[in-house]
């Protein structure tokens, strides 16, 4: 508004238009306030706040007394954190491979123009509608050593059969994996199926004319063509893995001992259970770092590549 009397060059029209330019589009700006608040204050502000406070000595309450990287040093010398990271790596790799392989195989089988496709699809996908808590509790019951699957197989006559992952620290992560795959593969199957449906029928005809077998066509031709679908799936699975928390809480509560702890649970315990905020902030900042490491190559491939091309 004060620009009105800057100089003779500014005509009267300009002076009227300038403030109104902001006002004219005021409605969308007001309407977007919740979004602007969420994006800038909650997401961006919250993230920066946590990273900032991870360099402080915060205990019961957050306070700004700097300790440099002390929290991170403590974090990485904590046995529980190391176990959490190892567990997440093991679970993550198996889950990534398992979900992609099962998801794609199921999608490919369903894409073979079979009868009852809709029935199979809804059976494979329904677990995805259920929460991780429900998933964890059901599988905890099925994997119950005295009354569950192990018992049934023993009753069938295989008396030495042992499958008790939830009480065996060595394989507890696989117990979680069985449940995690059950819950999550349906989604990836759906995405893969959509990808397969988008592939031109002519490709299949060409492959048949050339006498290439079905399996070989999938591996050599179809999968390379579905690269974007695989990348999307990969990002989705990876983002889900880092968040792994509810399933562990419901199925094993981190046990036996600390053998199925995961980073997200470490954060929660430090922040809300142990009154050890600094550790919680440092651990969650490490989780953020993991996501960044996963996402940057992907973002580069997806968006960086397009710009150059």
């Amino acid at each position: 508004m004060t620009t009105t009397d800057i100089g003779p060059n500014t005509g009267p029209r300009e002076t009227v238009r300038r403030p109104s330019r902001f006002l004219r589009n005021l409605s969308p700006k007001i309407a977007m306030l919740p979004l602007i608040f969420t994006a800038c204050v909650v997401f961006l502000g919250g993230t920066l706040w946590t990273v900032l406070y991870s360099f402080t000595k915060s205990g019961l309450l957050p306070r700004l007394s700097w300790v440099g990287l002390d929290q991170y040093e403590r974090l990485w010398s904590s046995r529980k954190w190391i176990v959490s990271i190892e567990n997440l790596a093991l679970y993550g790799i198996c889950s990534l491979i398992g979900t992609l392989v099962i998801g794609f195989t199921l999608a490919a089988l369903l894409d073979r123009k079979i009868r009852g496709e809709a029935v199979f699809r809804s059976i494979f996908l329904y677990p995805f509608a259920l929460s991780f808590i429900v998933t964890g509790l059901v599988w905890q019951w099925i994997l119950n050593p005295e009354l569950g699957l192990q018992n049934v197989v023993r009753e069938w006559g295989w008396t030495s059969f042992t499958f008790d992952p939830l009480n065996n620290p060595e394989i507890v992560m696989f117990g979680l994996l069985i449940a995690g795959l059950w819950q999550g593969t349906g989604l990836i199957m759906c995405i893969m199926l959509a990808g397969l449906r988008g592939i031109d029928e002519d490709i299949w005809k060409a492959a048949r004319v050339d006498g290439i077998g079905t399996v070989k066509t999938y591996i050599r031709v179809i999968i390379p063509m579905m690269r974007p679908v695989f990348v999307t799936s990969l990002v989705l699975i990876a983002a889900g893995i880092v968040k792994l928390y509810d399933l562990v809480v419901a199925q094993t509560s981190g046990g036996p001992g600390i053998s199925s702890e995961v980073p997200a649970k470490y954060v929660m315990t430090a922040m809300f259970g142990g009154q050890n905020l600094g550790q919680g902030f440092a651990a969650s900042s490490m989780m953020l770092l993991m996501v960044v490491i996963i996402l940057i190559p992907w973002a580069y491939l997806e968006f960086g590549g397009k710009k150059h091309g």
Partner: protein
Amino acid sequence: MADTGMLNAAAAVTQPLRGTLAAGPRGPKPKNKFSRSNIIIYGTLFVVALYYALPLYVMIVTSLKGLPEIRMGNIFAPPLEVTFQPWVKAWQEACTGINCDGLSRGFWNSVRILIPSVILSVAIASVNGYALSMWKFKGSEVFFTILMIGAFIPYQVMLYPIVILLREAGLYGSLTGLVLVHVAFGMPINTLLFRNYFASIPEELFKAARVDGAGFWAIFFKIILPMSLPICVVALIIQVTGIWNDFLFGVTYISSPDRYPMTVQLNNIVNSVQGVKEYNVNMAATLLTGLVPLVIYFASGKLFVRGIAAGAVKG
């Protein structure tokens, strides 16, 4: 026959395996229904379907048995004597800590969280999507990008700052606070959904309304909103299942067990260490908690798939 390309694939679904592929010079081979590849395909699908269907079956069967029968028998065996007692007990009497009024409390808490959260988030997301696709202003894309990046940040990073924000607003521990958290975290995916949907609406429609002198809200309520019913349903499905299934926010932002949502209460009931483990009651409680999203899933059919596919393209 079906060589009109993939657009006809849907119509050709019922045809046998190679029927559509073999439109070569010699025409399709006569096909044996029990060919080796068909047996492999159906066999694999059937076995895998068993793995997926089993937990639901076990949940139902266990919840209908009496405790002695569970201790004696086989987890997969159907109940010899059907009893609904575990369901009644899970709903009315199951204990969490000192409260013994069952899951019903959690159920009603979840409903009280769900309804305002879903309405608010769909309302806000539709307005956001509308503003982002038709009323772009300087910086609007920047805010949107920040919001979408925020969707990938692990929730744990933002949990504590939100505790502070809610405490400052006097909402920490209350259902209202949790509703706001759900609205915030549901915003990226739903805004994206609406933005992409509105981007496909022809611009002429919007311009014509502008020429007629309609403003931001008039266009939204009179033209855009009536057109967006299908996408609203998709957003609704995403939000209802997402909020109903939430555990992390419920356990973080609700301070008193009286107000815990159903998932949190369920976990407390089943994983409580005291007392005899009543597996039938636990499974009835688990099934009760899963019922709402399951009903939505089976009732909505293709829309559910569309919703999650929309969620999938957010990357």
